[in-house]
């Protein structure tokens, strides 16, 4: 398994910025812009000398034709930097920390070479919202549908901090249509697959494939769970403006059919459909309140059965609750695209997002490779590029990390 659909489901549109990616421009990026020192300090967890956190970590470099060079590993930050500049990969993926140096993987018995730890990671990808967003599909995003990502970041960030007690959360724009979260607390890094599955299960709420119209059905008890209550509060802040207003999820017959399909009452479905078909152009907000009123009335008559009483709450969650790619989270041995690499399709840098900037972060502000190279070529030497604020965010994050506990004596010095 290589990576989630983020890497493999290349949709069919062409993004700008990819034309400026070449081995030469990537080489320049890794020579002059990539924050090597901070990057090494992050993955070496601030220890003075290289630890197994770094030396036993798998990196995967993708070179021009989509060829994955897996199981790369490095003695220290210096070696990593030299190799990165030499290979100039179009993509860097980060894997797990293993029982031995991954570059020796082939010469080891499968039982001996095992993954032991990794950051707990989350992947939120806009393509998973294709059945609710109306502005874009596939690989494209815009300012409107980005708000789904904002909701997702806020919900997941609070749950990870308040419920699980994690503090070292690195949010990263994936460069195109989503975000990643790297939970770097030691306790999170030590979780085994079962632990990761449990966290993913706790955070996952929208379940069911394309052939399951109702994707959230909470019991009365689950809906009283503090995580659900808090998430609903966050969703409610956005629901009217984003889903009803900007997305107009009930504007056309196609759109409202998808919402009505989740209604557990055939008669109600038909009545509302007929009613809306007569005046199809009314705004979604009106239709939504009609629907909720009708459901409430029906629920009062039919009692709590048939899921009518909980319909509104379930639908808020179904439409706006974070959709996580669980496969990325649950497997210790899953690769995830590294922060600060260049997205091969858009040419944008995968930039960190500060936790206090979820609402203000604009994915289109993430600089592209071409833009950065123009900046350094035109500006006076030493002046900051538009990458600088993102490096600052990363710097603050890395500075707060605790040193790794398993510092091992090593003769390799730090050279940058």
């Amino acid at each position, binding site marked *: 398994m290589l990576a989630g659909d983020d*890497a*493999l489901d290349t949709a069919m549109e062409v993004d700008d910025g990819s034309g400026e990616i070449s081995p030469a421009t990537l080489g320049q990026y890794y020579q002059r812009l990539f924050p090597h020192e901070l990057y090494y300090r992050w993955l070496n967890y601030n220890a003075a000398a290289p630890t197994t956190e770094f030396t036993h970590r798998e990196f995967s470099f993708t070179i021009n034709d989509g060829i994955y060079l897996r199981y790369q590993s490095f003695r220290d930050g210096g070696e990593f930097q030299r190799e990165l500049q030499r290979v100039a990969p179009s993509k860097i993926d980060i894997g797990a920390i293993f029982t031995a140096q991954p570059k020796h993987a082939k010469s080891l018995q499968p039982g001996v070479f095992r993954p032991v730890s990794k950051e707990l990671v989350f992947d939120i990808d806009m393509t998973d919202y*294709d059945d609710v967003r109306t502005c874009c599909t596939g690989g494209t995003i815009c300012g409107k549908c980005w708000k789904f990502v904002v909701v997702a970041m806020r919900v997941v960030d609070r749950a990870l901090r308040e419920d699980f007690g994690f503090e070292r959360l690195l949010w990263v724009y994936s460069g195109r249509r989503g975000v990643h979260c790297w939970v770097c607390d030691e*306790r999170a890094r030590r979780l085994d697959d079962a632990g990761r*599955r449990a966290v993913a299960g706790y955070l996952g709420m929208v379940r069911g494939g394309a*052939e*399951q119209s109702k994707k959230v059905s909470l019991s009365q008890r689950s809906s009283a769970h503090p995580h659900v209550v808090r998430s609903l509060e966050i969703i409610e802040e956005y629901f009217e403006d984003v889903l009803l207003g900007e997305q107009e999820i009930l504007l056309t017959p196609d759109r409202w059919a998808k919402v009505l399909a989740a209604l557990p009452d055939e008669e109600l479905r038909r009545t509302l459909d007929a009613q809306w078909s007569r005046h199809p152009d009314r705004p979604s907000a009106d239709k939504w309140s009609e629907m909720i009123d009708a459901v409430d009335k029906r629920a009062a008559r039919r009692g709590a059965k048939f899921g009518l009483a909980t319909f509104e709450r379930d639908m808020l969650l179904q439409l706006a609750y974070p*959709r996580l790619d669980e496969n990325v989270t649950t497997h210790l041995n899953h690769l995830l695209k590294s922060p600060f690499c260049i997205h091969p399709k858009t040419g944008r840098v995968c930039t960190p997002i500060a936790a206090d900037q979820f609402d203000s972060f604009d994915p289109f502000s993430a600089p592209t490779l071409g833009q950065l190279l123009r900046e350094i070529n035109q500006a006076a030497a030493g002046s900051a590029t538009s990458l600088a604020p993102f490096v600052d965010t990363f710097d603050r994050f890395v500075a707060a990390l605790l040193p790794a506990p398993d510092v091992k004596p090593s003769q390799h010095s730090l050279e940058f």
Partner: protein
Amino acid sequence: MFSQRAAKRDNAAPEVVRHSRYPSRLSVYADAPELEVSIEEFETFALDRLQVLRAIEDAQLRAKGDDDMLRRVNEALDKHLPLHTNRSRLPARQLMAERRKDHVSHFILRLAFSRTEELRGWFLRYECALLKHRFREADTAERQELLGAARLQLAHIPAAARDGVLGEASGFYSAQEPLFEVDFERVLDLVGRSQVVLRAGKAYVPQSEVAALLAHEFRQRLGRALAVCAKALPQLGEDERLVPVLHNLSSQTARREYRSATAAGAVSADSVDELADGFPLCMQHLHGQLVADRHLRHGGRMQLGLFLKGIGLDLQEALAYWRRAFGAMTDDQFTKGYAYNIRHNYGMEGRRVDYAPYSCHRIITTNPPGPGDHHGCPFRHFAADRLRTALHRDRLADADVGEIAGLAAARHFQVACTRHLEARLLRRPAGARPADAHPAAVTSPNQFFDMCTSAAGTAHLCPLQLSPFDTSRPSRLHPTRNMDGYRGGPPPNQQRPPPNQQRPPPNASGYGGNAGYGGGNAGYGGGNAGYGGGNSGYGGGNPGGNPGGPYGTCLLPLAQRGMGHTLPVITAPTDL
């Protein structure tokens, strides 16, 4: 030896039980048995416990709710591994015998299942489930004993401190129920199902869910013990009586995976579309979506891709097929984004594993589809109305659609699929219909396809075949026993019209004449159909075929390995 002592005090009072080797009914198996076990018992005990663990596995897959789950597991326990309480007034000898069997069988299976990571995982999962089940069914005193034996560390949250710790969230629990604070890692199962409130990494576990903590502790310890056991296992290689028995035991749980006999290259990229009529519903759906969208997401590509490989699409044809199916993209996009994974599936990239098509069990229980995904099992993952629509589209009669949708709603997913196959076979004109249109339970989409297409040509359904690894090899000790379930008919390889000579003999007990779902729960077998019937001969203690072999006393070399276990001693049956 206690057993002899106990044997002499027939109708002993509970007093005797209290001072015996097994004062408590339930155990966390902290110590290995110090008893003599005959080879005969060695195998019967272990097989009986296996039946129970399999029954749990089976129940988890298809029980309709908590009550049904409890009923199914209790049934299996009563039959194979009864464990009566101290209050049961049964003779102490019987209580001791039951507890000894429970104890010994657990340790034998530890040995048998420590061999590989996969087996260890299986054993761990169902031993934990068994312990949780017994804890739930136990009375208060027994629960206390068990919790005491497991020495759980629990921090009780006093009622007064509750609101301070949890705030409004304390309303999630009933006010009377005692709460315990533990690290969330100790109750992962409860966390994953959002059954506990979390605050800063601590989980608040109500009294009623303490079983989860017990299971966690047990799991950790058993996991460690199995790892140690695995290291010691090579030592057993010297004992030629035990190794085959242990091997046989563990191989019987490994899921029987269907291997299609079709040779690679039997199907070309051009013929896939025509063959889709014979696909099971899941593959028909994926194929239809692929044609309609000219794209499939990762889960769907894997499920359909490996299925097509199984029906005989070789690598070159697969690349051609998928390239054409993804017609909207450029060659470059296809090569970079997809060709690698297709080659990977055929063992040409990465770890170079020649991946097998997914079984129904895997499709049903792992990687459920998310938004936008079309993979999964339609009987499991479709909304009821979508399933009906899909079945109607396959031109099924209303009555069949109703019955199949009903089976799916009752969580008999594979049975529903088998009924679907049956309905397809029966609607054929009489000449093209197989003589026996009651196929064996579907356990793999490829099996469905083979049955559907071979039935079209020959008028005969071949019995389900099993992969060589999984065929319950006849026990060294009782070479005839695994054949028990084979029901008559001509000797397998010669007289059937086998599409392929390599098929192993259909010793799949229980599969042979399995008309399926009609009868009791054994018939619902799906993936497990072979389990129930096949071993029925074991329990009775029939000495069966005895291949001889040196029966003397032997030691399992465990304690020597520093495993903290004392040695089960195995004696010849004549010593009993």
